[in-house]
């Protein structure tokens, strides 16, 4: 697991958080190269949908704004198109940083109520269990993770679409489809988890 987050400092510009990001976030060691040119945020196809955007997130990390960074919607609205990474004049892996910060936000409880995070969890549950995404189960799990009543409400709201998809053969009834070698996938994921744990141990 990742090293514990530093305490939120009273001093807004404490470097503790920047150091933590450098040591714990994928690509964090490249943060110091950023010259705040804005090419990343200016290239982002959904830049207007982000509260801060990647450039400002990097500035905020340096400024020690831990809570603001980890609860930002920038981490969740990133679509991993990699434009920022490709265009960054300093070669900073911006997408990796943003994506890994999202994972850290989940790990440290900043994303418990983030819809994007809940959807991502449902998506991952189906993918790892069946090797495929089952639209019904991913959607149902996602809706009900928002609360029982909200699950019913959203389910009913989408009923017409779902029935239409069943009628036209776009969605099936019955057991979820699995990939042929689900045991193989399970073994791969188990090994990946082992490697991750080993790497975490090595770093300690």
């Amino acid at each position, binding site marked *: 697991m990742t090293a514990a987050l530093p305490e939120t400092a009273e001093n807004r510009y404490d470097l503790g958080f920047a150091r933590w990001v450098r040591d714990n976030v994928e690509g964090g060691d490249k943060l110091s190269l950023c010259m705040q*040119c804005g*090419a990343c945020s*200016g290239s982002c196809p959904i830049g207007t949908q982000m509260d801060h955007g990647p450039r400002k997130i990097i500035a905020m990390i340096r400024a020690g704004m831990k809570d603001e960074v980890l609860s930002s919607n920038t981490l969740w609205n990133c679509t991993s198109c990699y434009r920022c990474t490709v265009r960054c004049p300093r070669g900073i892996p911006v997408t990796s940083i943003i994506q890994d910060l999202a994972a850290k936000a989940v790990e440290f409880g900043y994303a418990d109520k983030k819809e994007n995070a809940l959807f991502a969890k449902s998506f991952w549950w189906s993918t790892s269990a069946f090797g495929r995404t089952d639209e019904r189960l991913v959607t149902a799990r996602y809706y009900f993770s928002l609360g029982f009543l909200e699950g019913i409400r959203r389910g009913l709201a989408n009923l017409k679409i779902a029935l239409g998809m069943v009628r036209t053969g776009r969605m099936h009834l019955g057991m979820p489809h699995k990939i042929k070698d689900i045991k193989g996938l399970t073994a791969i994921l188990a090994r990946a988890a082992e490697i991750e744990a080993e790497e975490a141990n090595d770093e300690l």
Partner: protein
Amino acid sequence: MTDGAPKSQTIAVVGGGIAGITAALEAAEMGYDVVLLEKGPSLGGRVTRLNRYFPKLCHPTCGLEINYQRIKKNPRIKLMTMSEVQGVTGVRGDYLLTVRKTPRFVNANCTACGACAQAAETEIDNSFNYGMDKVKVAYLPHEHAFPMRYIISPEVIGTPEADKIKESCKYNAVELDQQEETFDLNAGAIIWATGWRPYDASKLDVYGYDSSPDIITNVEMERLAAHDGPTDGKIIRPSDGEPAKRVAMIQCAGSRDVNHLPYCSMICCLASLKHAAYVREQYPDAEVDIYYIDIRAHDKMSSFYERVRNDPGINFIKSKPGHIVVGEDGRPLVCGEQIIEREIYQRPYDLVVLATGMEPSRAPGADQPVDVEQDEHGFLIPAVGNDGGQFSAGVAGGPFDVALSTQSATAAALKAIQAVRAG
């Protein structure tokens, strides 16, 4: 002379731009024989294509004119145009340079009367104006050319048009049977003043240089503003000839970018400040936006920066644009994030000027006949080689403005003199 004294006290200067001219003159005026080799048909290099210098906005022509006079009057300088060094052997005090001379097809009888150009019909891209207009196949390199002599482009040789050109000359200056020749040259020291070229803007695919004629480079902007340029000095939109009154300057277009030129090219900030001044001088109602990462106007340049900054028609926008696209109305749209305000913008302009950087002429991958010691970017190291007889001058050694180029050329001349005097 003692044993080991230099066999040759001649200094070879390779490249006839401002650095090469300066190095040649400094050495010759100290009493040393100099051979000045220029690959092209005339001297002046990149500087002669500038409209004006920063920060004083004076014209390069007058300084060059004085230098040409000094060259003319100095019998110690042997000037060879159309001459490119193909190989170097030997050591300090005794180099042998192999030089290839390409034919000009016009001899020294030429009076620059222009009859040949009138007789010619075929037109070619005018490289002096970075291909923004055309010249006839018999042409004067440009109106301040030194030597003031026409040249005939090789593609016309062997055609009836060439014969017509020859007949038009009253001074017997056209020699259609000139051949390429290669010869050897002795020198005791070599000054490499091979200069630079603008970074290829087509490689900056996100800035759309190839997608609109209204997206140009900073060197093209110089020609657009020059009285002897393709528009007689009018700054207009190349697409339709209308005045360019909403103009964007994009700094660091290629420079300070690990995907292109990782270094700062040093001149582009000042060049763009100057370009903004050009636009504002021509159109009192024009508005110029300068998109920058940071403005690098040091020391004596900062007062020019202050002057430009105080112009209410010039806006400084801290932002490296993400991309430039062509909008629905056909104008270039500059897109990015304004970082102070964190505002995502998309703004249309009449003209977008990419402040492309300086790439050494000997950049990696460039076709260079002579292997000279250089750094990873293609810049020559100040003392080339280990034998102490070869030196770089001007932008061949790194990004410099004109003032620093001439200083480095003077330094190189002194080093070269020391090399040919050493026992």
